[in-house]
């Protein structure tokens, strides 16, 4: 919403300065987005006239112009605008002029070999308007050499308010003045329009015809003014419209635009000669079309409301009129429409057809129903004043009278909700200056809401009005006691796991990325996703179309992008949401990471201390286990099963589970086909752990750790090397050894795996160290040997392994 200071002062009597007014507007909730002073901003750009325009010798699209800028010496300027023609008054920028919108400074230059001593300018080039089709065209009487903005009457500050959608009353200068008036920095001037009776009956009748359907037009007012002379509107009106960025058209149209902004009352004018018979306000028939004032033809449907005559649709109700019945210089009799429309319907229609107009903007927020008839009178008066003519009586179909809202307001609501007390006098005065009517005295009053405030429904709204006008500054800051639960932990188990997982992974040298929750359909499909219910209906881009089923796709792509920038050895992780379905319980928290190139856990990149080793499945496994340990998984209970989802290398991946029903995660080297599909290259290893799948920790009554039992006897370590088939799993050998005596054997570690010379092909040697912890007494050599023999037998039985000779 834009307006000029002088326009505001027509409705507001004040001695306050522009700065005070701007501050106050912001502090009562009418946030001033900016105050623009076009005269100042475009001071350097002056009126000039093209004297001649000749074809450029070396370029088809360019013209070489001589331009009079009032200095007596014509300038030679090369111009590419299609409208650069001899005689045109336009806008000139001289060398040395800085254009803030473009951050460039104009200079004398040669364009295709011809010197150009300045630049003729389009609206878009200097940020004056969005017009980039050609250079600005000024009226023929524009004085050469004067700043063009001044010539256009843009010589006062324009205030632009960022209006919140609830304040339909402030879509008008009048409404803004009324709101400001409540603050006591000035007085609102209520310029109530004079009633106009009319001297003859309106010849056009209006019918509201919605049959059995929901009516979309509560009321409709119409009046004929006959014998008008339409032409350019007076200077003051044109300047006012130009200042806020509207293009003056003709007096009749300008009047409707003016009242739209001045009073928030959109109107429409029909050329009465072009309207056939009476008007019907009805739903459109499916497929009916209208060529609207913007020159476009719209196809309508029965959800839309139109105004039709006997020929057909003449206007799209509350949004835009039709071209056919529009007013021009030849209009002699004009029909003025002032109506009320269903706000939701206007919004829907506007959205469906993609039409944004000042009328739609107001009707969809809600206009003052009580101003429908005064608005019609005001328009009539302006038409008579500016174009002459004689007004008919008004035709009113339907009933504009709104339902009155009365709020029972205990004064205690203000301290209860806002923590501030105001005197009853101040409360009443504030409300009344806003146009509310307060009745009753004492601690409970009745407040009648004015018809222009459809946003006010209840007590909280009244509290808001009061706080808004007296200022939130008046509300004392009140200490908030931290409450009885202040020292309790506040995080849920998942939140604790999430933050621990992040720190654990970062501590292993991985860098946390935050990537989009959506990936492309193809990426989703590669990682087991791509369900139709997880594809956005309106994605912002094709590569961000589907909710991600895994974090790995984005992490792999991110690693590759870093590699492409010259950072080949990257280790990235993310802890975030993945989606297996569209229900809340289908959303999981995954902790995933990838390592690429030489980004090993014990050091990233090449180092003099060891030969470079690319990342492999065991780096990913170690990361996965680090996350699980940090997040509190029962590490003893975890099983690793070879193989994983199809995006991993089938022989170099594993699944971490507690039984086949509870899979906690996967790790492995990425499948080359997946890498190829993602246009990434390896070596690349990754993992994914689902934090929800960790079993809940058992609730314990105290925080005490289990009693420490220190064995009285020294542990004994025995090494065994078994030769087994290559496919035998080390974990099975270790488990077989462990199971021989769960009490005495407290640890089994694999310390060597060997294939090659000395070992039969197809076999390998796996060496384990078994730690034996004597319990009741020191064990004799015979006892230890006996246990060792059992281990050899058991491993042999379980895995076919024989002690290496």
């Amino acid at each position, binding site marked *: 919403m834009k307006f000029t200071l002088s326009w505001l002062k027509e409705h507001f009597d004040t001695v306050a300065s522009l700065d005070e007014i701007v501050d106050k507007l912001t502090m009562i909730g009418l946030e001033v987005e900016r105050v623009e002073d076009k005269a100042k901003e475009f001071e350097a750009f002056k009126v000039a006239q093209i004297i001649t325009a000749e074809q450029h010798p070396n370029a088809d699209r360019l013209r070489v112009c001589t331009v009079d800028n009032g200095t007596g010496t014509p300038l030679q300027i090369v111009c590419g605008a299609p409208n650069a023609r001899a005689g045109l008054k336009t806008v000139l920028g001289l060398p040395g002029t800085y254009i803030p919108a473009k951050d460039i400074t104009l200079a004398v230059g040669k364009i295709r070999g011809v010197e150009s001593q300045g630049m003729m300018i389009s609206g878009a080039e200097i940020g004056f308007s969005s017009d980039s089709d050609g250079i600005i065209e000024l009226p023929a009487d524009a004085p050469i050499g004067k700043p063009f903005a001044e010539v256009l009457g843009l010589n006062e500050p324009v205030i632009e308010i960022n209006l919140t*959608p609830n304040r339909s009353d402030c879509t008008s200068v009048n409404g803004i003045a009324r709101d400001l008036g409540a603050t006591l920095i000035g007085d609102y001037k209520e310029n109530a329009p004079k009633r106009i009776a009319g001297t003859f009956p309106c010849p056009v009748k209006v019918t509201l015809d919605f049959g059995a359907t929901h009516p979309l037009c509560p009321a409709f007012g119409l009046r004929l003014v006959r014998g008008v002379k339409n032409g350019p509107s007076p200077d003051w009106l044109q300047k006012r419209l130009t200042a806020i960025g509207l293009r003056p058209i003709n007096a009749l149209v300008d009047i409707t635009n003016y009242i739209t902004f001045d009073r928030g009352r959109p109107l429409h004018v029909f050329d009465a000669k072009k309207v056939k018979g009476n008007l019907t306000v009805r739903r459109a028939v499916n497929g009916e079309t209208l060529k609207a004032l913007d020159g476009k033809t719209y196809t309508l449907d029965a959800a839309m409301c139109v105004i039709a005559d006997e020929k057909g649709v003449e206007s799209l109700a509350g949004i835009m009129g039709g071209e056919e019945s529009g007013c021009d210089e030849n209009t002699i009799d004009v029909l003025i429409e002032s109506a009320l429309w269903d706000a939701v319907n206007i919004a829907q229609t506007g959205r469906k057809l993609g039409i944004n107009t000042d009328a739609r903007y107001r009707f969809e927020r809600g206009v003052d129903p009580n101003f429908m008839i005064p608005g019609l009178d005001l328009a009539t008066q302006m038409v008579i004043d500016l174009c002459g003519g004689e007004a008919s009586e008004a035709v009113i179909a339907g009933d504009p009278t709104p339902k009155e809202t009365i709020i029972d307001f205990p004064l205690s609501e203000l301290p*209860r909700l806002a923590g501030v007390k105001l005197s009853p006098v101040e409360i009443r005065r504030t409300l009344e200056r806003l146009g509310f009517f307060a009745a009753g005295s004492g601690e409970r009053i009745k407040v009648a809401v004015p018809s222009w405030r459809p946003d006010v429904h209840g007590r909280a709204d009244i509290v808001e009005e009061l706080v808004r006008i007296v200022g939130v*500054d008046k*509300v004392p800051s009140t200490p908030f006691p931290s409450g009885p639960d202040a020292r309790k932990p506040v995080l849920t188990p998942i939140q604790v796991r999430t933050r621990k997982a992040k720190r654990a992974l*970062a501590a292993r040298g991985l860098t946390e990325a935050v990537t989009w929750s959506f990936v492309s359909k193809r990426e989703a499909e590669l990682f087991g996703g791509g369900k139709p219910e997880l594809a956005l*209906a309106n994605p912002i881009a094709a590569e961000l179309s589907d909710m991600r089923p895994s974090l790995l796709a984005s992490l792999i792509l991110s690693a590759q992008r870093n590699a492409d*920038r010259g950072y080949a050895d990257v280790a990235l992780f993310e802890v975030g949401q993945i989606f297996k379905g569209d229900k809340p319980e289908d959303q999981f928290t995954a902790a995933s990471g990838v390592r690429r190139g030489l980004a090993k856990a014990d050091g990233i990149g090449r180092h003099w201390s060891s030969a470079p080793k690319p990342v492999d499945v065991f780096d990913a496994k170690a990361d996965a286990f680090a996350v699980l340990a940090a997040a509190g998984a029962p590490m003893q209970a975890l099983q690793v099963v070879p193989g994983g989802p199809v995006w991993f290398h089938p022989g170099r991946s594993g699944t971490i589970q507690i039984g086949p029903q509870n899979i906690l995660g996967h790790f492995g080297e990425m499948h080359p086909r997946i890498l190829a599909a993602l246009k990434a290259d390896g070596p690349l290893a990754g993992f994914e752990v689902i934090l929800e799948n960790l079993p809940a920790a058992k609730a314990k009554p105290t925080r005490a750790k289990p009693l420490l039992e220190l064995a009285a006897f020294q542990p004994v370590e025995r090494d065994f090397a078994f030769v087994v088939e290559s496919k035998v799993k080390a974990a099975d050998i270790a488990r077989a050894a462990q199971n021989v005596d769960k009490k005495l054997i407290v640890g089994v570690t694999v310390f060597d795996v060997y294939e090659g010379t000395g070992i039969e092909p197809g076999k390998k040697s796996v060496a384990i160290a078994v730690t034996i912890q004597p319990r009741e007494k020191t064990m004799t050599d015979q006892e230890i040997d006996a246990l060792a023999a059992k281990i050899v037998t058991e491993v042999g039985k379980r895995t076919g392994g024989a002690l290496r000779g």
Partner: protein
Amino acid sequence: MSDIAKLETELLSAVGAAKDEAALEAVRVSALGKSGLVSALLKTLGAMTPDERKAKGPAINGLKERITTEIAARKDALGMAALDARLASETVDVTLPTRETPAELGRVHPISQVIDELTAIFADMGFAVAEGPDIETDDYNFTKLNFPEGHPAREMHDTFYFPPKPDGSRLLLRTHTSPVQVRTMLTQKPPIRVIIPGRTYRSDSDQTHTPMFHQVEGLVIDKTSHLGHLKWILEEFCKAFFEVDSVNMRFRPSFFPFTEPSMEVDIQCRRDKGEIRFGEGTDWLEILGCGMVHPNVLRNCGLDPDEYQGFAWGMGIDRIAMLKYGINDLRAFFEADVRWLSHYGFRPLDFPTLAGGLSA
């Protein structure tokens, strides 16, 4: 010179000449071994008369002692020299670089760090952390929050939708964290104090908007909390978060469908070469939106607005991270560029605490 003195001179010179422990051992054997020269002399004592023994005994014993001592001293010296030589041979180039500690290399994203900071501050004020799903219903994201069907306020949110279900309903990506307010109120009995951090989505993308961003909001519902408390909490929060002693805040009335009254909050600051300093200067910077929970929202969540009341606020996590840590491009948050992450990220052990300082 007596024979003993001569022998002593010879032996001492042999000890001194021994170049290594083996040579020294040879000298020792030649002198003190079973058939060594000194041992031979000692053996002669047995055959001597008492007088002879009295005269020669001390000399021979003295010789033995001195030679023994000298050999031990020489042995120490040789051992030391041998050790020195070995150590010298073991010299390495200590200027060779060591591997960087993984904990020094790894980074936590600024968003995670800021969420941890927020949690520390609000946990201290008695707030729990609530969360909810990213895929929401229209009812929770809009209707229950008092965005009426067809209301223009819905258009302020550029919503991502999923395909319509057979019944015509459509799920969406939450446009704000506020549906979690609804979920919290529907499942918990007041008093409620929660903060809700999370991902939010709007189909908007330019220099300052990304289709996904992070919000945190706070919700307090009880029977007494009012606007004055809200102001206090936000002031305390801003001081704690930006780690300044005082901060000037401006509460501007505004509009959100789910609060009434509604306000936007600006903080005073000074912009200094890309850095923003709070608690000084004359600029105002918008930082958050807040207000008293709208009676319709309370009602929609099964609470009687005449009995219960409370407030809510919301702000962009990415935005406050940018403000605090001087980050100037929002889009870079989601580009996973390790150069950016290493620079703006946090070391894993730098865990924010109120006791130790949030960013100390």
